[in-house]
């Protein structure tokens, strides 16, 4: 059965970039404003899910060749890795630190290890959400 879905695919090509940009913005805004790794990861995952809806699994895997279970595993490793790193400095587990550095163009910018932890959370959320949605929406064989 052939269905004409050229409108959905054309809209998706433009909208996916807007959604991914919003996800990255929310991830970096989470330091001082609403947002953060969890929300940013959910928005990134919803952009990838939109790709899966408009196209199919094989086409998306050619463009985004990630195994999302491994993405989730790498995220958990990164998030707990920043926690383990803190115990080498004789402070409690999961202690985070940061400082303000003045950059040439950006001005006073805050750098902290919380960003690495949030990156781990975001990768975990992306991997888990995409894996769940692909698992429950798969058509049965035959």
């Amino acid at each position, binding site marked *: *059965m052939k269905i004409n879905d050229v409108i959905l695919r054309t809209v998706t090509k433009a909208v996916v970039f807007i959604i991914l940009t919003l996800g990255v913005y*929310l991830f970096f805004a989470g330091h001082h404003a609403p947002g953060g790794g969890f929300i940013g990861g959910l928005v990134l995952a919803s952009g990838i899910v*939109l790709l899966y*809806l408009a196209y199919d*699994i094989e*086409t998306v895997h050619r463009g985004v060749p990630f195994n999302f279970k491994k993405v989730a595993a790498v995220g958990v490793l990164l998030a707990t890795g920043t926690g383990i790193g803190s115990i080498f400095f004789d402070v409690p587990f999961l202690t985070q630190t940061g400082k303000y550095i003045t950059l040439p163009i950006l001005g006073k910018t805050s750098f902290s290890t919380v960003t690495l932890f949030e990156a781990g959370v975001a990768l975990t959320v992306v991997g888990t959400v995409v894996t769940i949605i692909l698992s429950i929406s*798969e058509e049965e064989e035959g």
Partner: protein
Amino acid sequence: MIDQILMLALALFSLSIAITLYRVIKGPSMPDRAIALDTIGVNLLSAIAIVSIVLKTKAYLEAILILGILAFIGTIAFTKYIERGVVVERKSNH
């Protein structure tokens, strides 16, 4: 004056969501329910915008964007399920 207008608009949006909820529950066919859910999303988005005007804050603007994205993706998933019986296809049939 503007406060009364905003409160009246909020009440009317709530009424509209309630009426649309009736269509979600009662709706004779599945496409009715899909369109009603999309309408609830749009009305909720407008209500959040008015709440953000009433409270004089910008903190809800991200919530509006995310709600719009999720309503869009949800409607696409519903319509694709109704149309083809499957949400994510394994391989291309073009």
